[in-house]
């Protein structure tokens, strides 16, 4: 039946072309977005010096001052706080789920942590301004409580599901034999976790942490509600400052498209993209190192 045969081949070829064109389409779209943001952003430097943009913290566009250092520092600072708080907690949760939790606890807790990911960021921000800033205000002895600490706490909660689920997967995908070998040598459970399991899963855990950082640095709505949004280098963790994302969302809607001010905001978006790219490359190297072992 040569007729039918040719159909089988035709389908195979057709599907392959469809898949390839999807991949090409996706990459075209992605390149378009990157190109659009990049071109728009880079045109800032027709009127602003690169050095000023990256080294000055004076952001006052209507008097011609375009220093974005505060925002870059704010983004990095809040992300670090988020990782310092959310990373260990999430990792503890992952270790707990993978090694300690009785099955019924896990059956309930795993989907529950996934729920964190489903809560809209506006809701996080809302809890942030009604509950968390009060707390950080008292902690840092600042009147408003807006600032990097508040944003860091909100982000720490938001990255929990990423850290937990990816690290738990990494721990779970370890061969059972590691654990058995260690226990059979007379190691306690904690020794096994600390000396064998976590080190063996470290590439996966690192991936989790870096992806969580990428998530944190890109978060907008929730951060914007609790960071205080003052374009100023903060004196403390509890004084208002800004991040790249919060400043973009604060000013984007009220600046004319194509103005230097507006372009500067696109440049900030482009910086975010570049930071994300660097982090992904870090993830890649981390996981490649893991695979090579």
């Amino acid at each position, binding site marked *: 039946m040569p007729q039918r045969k040719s159909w089988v081949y035709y389908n195979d070829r057709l599907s392959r072309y469809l898949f390839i064109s999807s991949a090409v389409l996706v990459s075209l779209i992605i390149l378009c977005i990157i190109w659009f943001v990049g071109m728009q952003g880079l045109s800032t430097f027709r009127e602003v010096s690169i050095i000023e943009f990256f080294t000055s913290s004076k952001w006052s566009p209507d008097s011609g001052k375009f220093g974005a250092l505060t925002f870059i520092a704010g983004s990095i600072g809040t992300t670090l706080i988020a990782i310092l708080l959310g990373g260990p907690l999430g990792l503890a949760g992952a270790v707990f789920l993978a090694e300690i939790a*009785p*099955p019924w606890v896990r059956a309930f807790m795993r989907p529950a942590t996934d729920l964190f990911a489903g809560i809209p960021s506006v809701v996080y921000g809302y809890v942030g301004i009604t509950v968390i800033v009060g707390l950080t205000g008292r902690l840092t002895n600042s009147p408003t409580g807006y600032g990097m600490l508040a944003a860091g706490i909100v982000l720490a909660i938001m990255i929990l599901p990423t850290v937990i689920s990816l690290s738990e997967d990494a721990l779970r995908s370890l*061969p059972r*034999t*590691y654990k*058995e*070998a*260690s*226990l*059979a*040598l*007379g*190691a*306690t459970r904690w*020794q096994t976790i600390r*000396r*064998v399991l976590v*080190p*063996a899963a470290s590439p996966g855990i690192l991936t989790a942490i870096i992806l969580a950082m990428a998530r944190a640095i890109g978060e907008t709505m929730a951060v914007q509600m609790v960071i205080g949004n003052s374009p100023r280098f903060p004196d403390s963790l509890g004084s208002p400052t800004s991040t790249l994302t919060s400043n973009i969302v604060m000013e984007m809607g009220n600046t004319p498209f194509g103005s230097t001010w507006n372009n500067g905001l696109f440049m900030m978006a482009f910086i975010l993209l570049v930071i994300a790219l660097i982090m992904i490359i870090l993830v890649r190297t981390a996981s490649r190192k893991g695979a090579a*072992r």
Partner: protein
Amino acid sequence: MDKIVVNKLDLFYGDQQALNNIGIAMKERSVTALIGPSGCGKSTFLRTLNRMQDLIPSVKITGQVKIDGQDIYATGTDVVLLRKKVGMVFQNPNPFPKSVFENVAYGPRIHGETDKKKLSEIVETSLKDAALWNEVKDRLHESALGLSGGQQQRLCIARLLAVGPEILLMDEPTSALDPISTMKIEELISELKDKYTIIIVTHNMHQASRVSDRTAFFLSGDLIEEDVTSVLFTRPAKKKTEDYISGRFG
């Protein structure tokens, strides 16, 4: 002297019985082989001897397992200490993703040894005892995962010897290996039996006859027969044993 005495041992996975009224005794400094078809309970039995089976939630165990006269299932037993004394080698070599040195030093370290020099000594002796020293002495700090399968298995044995066990449990330690590596492990077992009590699970009846003093034949959870190896293979007392042995060579 009997090192291990097992008495009326029953084991259930949930409702399903996997070991049925097992009774057996093993002498110090002897090699006992466990044979039987797949699923008959060899691994399960082996793993009750160092309480690794405790890790499976649904398992229920009744009966007695005495090691040096002490019931290891009595309340108050220190499982961690027990496992230090009753070491285990697995079917597939399972070195940690660490260096050769760190693999062997792992056991002493978790048992509190911190002195660098002592650790080095222990690592060297253990590797020598496991007949691996010459092959790895120049690559102690390379990853253990770069070793061949047979080397990895001997590394696991060295890692075990380093914690100073008295009993070695081996669950099909050569089934994943090529013939040459298998030979080396078998030789090693023959050397080790001067110092340790060894129990080995194997699919390979040749192997059982080559390495063991006594052999126990399991069939669907029952211990059918246990005797001096040469006797069991040539003049088995039970019909089932004979069927199995001849079927294998049929």
